[in-house]
């Protein structure tokens, strides 16, 4: 499976295998693959900054205290092209986040998979129509 994807993506010209890839940072250096997290919380803030957007969620801890997690999302430029704006995210939305915690141990994580309580994919779920509304087309 993995091999096949690499082959396809290689054909897609995306994997510059011989290139010293200038990935803009090392995932492994920032987040810890040995610290997977799965948290559910309600959204309090959405920062549309580059290179990554950040979703702040309040997560209720076991002892009843509330912990604020910062969840990393893609560049807002990508999100704008999906049709999202700063107004798209309703505060209080409950989301479930699967990801990896920051290596420095802070309550910060990359959101590898982010869904609403009803299972809808987070960023796509924020758009008006099924899938991103394309320029000039009315929602179905």
């Amino acid at each position, binding site marked *: 499976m993995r091999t096949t994807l690499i082959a396809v993506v290689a054909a897609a010209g995306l994997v510059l295998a011989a290139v010293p890839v200038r990935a803009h940072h090392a995932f492994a250096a920032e987040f810890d693959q040995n610290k997977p997290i799965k948290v559910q919380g309600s959204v309090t803030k959405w920062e*549309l900054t580059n290179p990554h957007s950040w979703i702040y969620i309040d997560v209720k801890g076991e002892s009843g205290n509330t912990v604020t997690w910062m969840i990393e999302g893609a560049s807002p430029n990508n999100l704008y092209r999906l049709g999202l704006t700063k107004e798209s995210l309703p505060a209080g939305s409950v989301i479930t986040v699967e990801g990896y915690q920051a290596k420095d141990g802070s309550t910060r994580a990359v959101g590898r998979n982010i869904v609403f309580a009803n299972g809808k994919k987070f960023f796509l779920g924020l758009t008006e129509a099924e899938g991103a509304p394309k320029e000039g087309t009315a929602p179905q």
Partner: protein
Amino acid sequence: MRTRLTDSVIPGTAAAIVVLLAAIVSAQAPSYRAPRTGDGKPNLNGIWQALNTADWDLQGHAASKGPVPSLGAVFAVPPGLSVVEGGEIPYLPAAAAKKKQNQANWTTLDPEAKCYLPGVPRATYLPYPFQIVQSPQTILMSYEYAGAVRVVNMGAPTKAPADSWMGWSNGRWEGDTLVVDVTSQLDSTWFDRAGSFHSDALHVVERYTPRSADTLTYEATIEDPKVFSRPWKISMPLYRRVEKDAKLLEYKCVEFAEELLYGSLRKKSSN
């Protein structure tokens, strides 16, 4: 037949009319008419720079000691007259207190020290040149400082998709003046090194008016009801960089700000 009317009143009135006409004509005619681009617009293309101490302090100020004693007179604060019409920025009382705090701690708080994007209007009067590249639909302004840039939409005004450091600029012509309406700036920028600041409600309207072959008059009206008691205005000349092959170089200051930002995270050497 000569009467008082013909001898004094008529000539006097005629003279008065001539003077009045001359005054009307000179008030209507711009003192300088810039050459035109191929599409008939005033030509603002070029490399421009402010020559004042606005970036140190928009308000009038005497010279004062710099923040780094070891740099002595190399890096002390130069004196300058106010570029603010009326002299002072009209802060609301709470904001005035914050400004004082900002100013007292400017070396750690000023986003310029961190090489952050400067926003508008500060980008215009930073002590580095910027370049205007003018096309009919779009006017691009490229700033040497931090490679800051903004694109002014000269077509029908559009709405900002989000807030940004350099804001969202819609422009139009009013006679020989380029008017740029700037909205949606983040509240993270300052106006100068003296702690002048604003909120996310900032609205700036700039005016670029050619005043001679090599100078522009730059005006900016600043409005922010969360910080100021009324709109206020700055005004200054911008000077063309006329040397042969003048060019913006790189002032990619990120690497100069890194020690300030990340120095405390450096590995402590144990040997």
